[in-house]
């Protein structure tokens, strides 16, 4: 009777299979995956961490800085365990107003460089907590693509291993401005150095004119410092 059992088994299993496919057919829309380029997960609020299924979209994917709010305190740079944040700052002139942050703090330092190396970043989120201005945070933007391949001057093979593509520069201070300020500082230092040199030469000349005994110099060790302060 294996013959009839075979037929019966065939019919029941076929009907089972047809039930499965019909179940999917009548409510396919419920099971279809996200149609990615057309639909995306909604961008979350500033909420960090991987949660349950309903907060699946709340993910740490890219570190971001609101550079307008950055005061250049370098707390995030020090907090970073892998040193992926690099910050350079310049003092501004006395009385120069470079704006306030969104929390109302007057900015004192010009952030000339703020790079985040996303190949180094390990998404630990430790840098966001020390920030006094709440301007560095994780975003759910998981797309690291560049708009145009021509931007990246590497071959197709190299593109995948070129980590420089993932070093993000956030500073908006133009290079000419940085150069200008650096030039001013350099000029000031040059003037200062020239003045120091002049003073030193004058001191040597006066020292040569009125020689002191050697024991006297040892009794007054602070004289060199006094000279520098002048």
């Amino acid at each position, binding site marked *: 009777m294996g013959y009839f059992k075979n037929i019966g088994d065939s019919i029941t299993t076929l009907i089972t299979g047809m039930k499965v496919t019909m179940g*999917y057919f009548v409510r396919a829309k419920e099971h279809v995956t996200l149609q990615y380029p057309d639909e995306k997960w909604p961008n979350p609020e500033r909420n960090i961490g991987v949660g349950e299924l309903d907060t699946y979209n709340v993910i740490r994917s890219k570190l971001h800085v609101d550079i307008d709010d950055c005061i250049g305190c370098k707390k995030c740079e020090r907090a970073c365990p892998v040193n992926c944040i690099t910050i350079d700052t310049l003092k501004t002139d006395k009385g120069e107003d470079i704006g306030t942050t969104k929390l109302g703090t007057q900015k004192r330092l010009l952030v000339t460089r703020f790079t985040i190396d996303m190949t180094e970043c390990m998404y630990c989120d430790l840098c966001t907590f020390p920030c006094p201005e709440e301007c560095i945070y994780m975003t759910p933007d998981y797309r690291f693509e560049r708009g145009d391949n021509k931007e990246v001057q590497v071959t197709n093979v190299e593109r995948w291993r070129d980590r420089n593509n993932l070093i993000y520069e956030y500073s908006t201070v133009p290079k000419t401005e940085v150069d200008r300020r650096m030039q001013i500082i350099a000029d000031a230092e040059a003037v200062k150095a020239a003045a120091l040199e002049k003073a030193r030469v004058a001191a040597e000349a006066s020292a040569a004119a009125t020689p002191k005994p050697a024991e006297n110099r040892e009794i007054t060790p602070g004289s060199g410092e006094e000279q520098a302060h002048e």
Partner: protein
Amino acid sequence: MIDAFASWMLQFGALSWLGTTPATILAMSLVAVAIFIFVALNALVLVYVERKVSAFMQVRLGPMRVGPMGTLQTVADALKLLLKEDIIPRFADPILFRVGPWIILLASFVAFAAVPFSPGWVPADMSIGLFYVVSISSVVVIGIVMSGWASNNKWSLYGAMRSAAQIVSYEIPVGLSLLAAVAVVGTLNLQEIIAAQAGVGNLFHWIPIPFPNWYIFHSPFLFLAGCIYLIAATAEVNRTPFDIPESESELVAGFMTEYSGIRWALFFLSEYANAAVVALLTAIVFLGGWQSPFADLAGARFGMISLTVLALIWTIFVKYKVKRLSIYPIGTILALTVIAWLFPAFAIWLATPGLVWIAIKGGVVIFLLMWFRWTFPRLRVDQLMYLSWKVLLPIALINLAGVAVWMWLTGAISLVG
């Protein structure tokens, strides 16, 4: 239909200079063109539907880009196929390679000649219509073997050989299952087969049952015959799960491996034309063809009321089984009761042309074929032969005898007189 069409054309002054014979030839050509347009549009629509059905069954969305919901995808594909380079392999047989697809298309195309689309609407109303359709459909195998051999490719030849074995084997269950219906109705004319299925179904010519008088509901034996026909016909038109002649995973595409462009499009046309022929034949022989269900007003009202009672029983059953009231049976009952007592609704029901009814029925069968295709895995060659010769054939034979016994019991035939 041809003669009526020809005489209708001769009525007009502009066409009256035509003699009877030229008018008939013109009518034939026009009908043939109409059927060809039907075949082409049929393939165009069915390709889209098949892609959508398969997508939904596999939890995808299918074509979505070209046109609204991807409706113009098939048009784009057809244009691409028309514009593609026509490649013929260097060592292929040049004549047979070109002729093969046309024979396949012709065989499935000519089968439409005997298909009744509506009362009086049959291109050739022949007394052996059923026999004609079944026999002309098997000419396809010549084209398949021809293109498989001419391709000069081992996969193509394998596909063609498998196809020959398969189609020849499954002819027999197809014939025997159709013969069961023919034994009941006593004619091979398709219009007469449809006409015999009018009205409300009955048991032993005595007890009315709430089903249409279609042969699928005629008796357990004819129900079985319908199932066997559907299975065997699926195999005969090479659709999954019986698509071993063109099994993609083993033979690339079987006999159509070497074809591309417009010739490959011909294969596709014939594939869907075949599916349509099978679906229409199922609808005609087992589902009442262009008859509306229950056929007349009293019958329709009876059928509707019976179905209302059935829905009520179903509701109670569901409530008893899952311990909560399902909304769907109640909705069904309400809808059916309203329809049953609304006279105008019935007028629409009865006035619906036969073309629509046969299209609905054929569409249901085609959906069933697609459902099979995207659910079942492919049979192995030996399993295919086992199914045909050891399962379907004996059951169909016993079934035929069973139909004869049923006919004798119900008094339709008598052994004595």
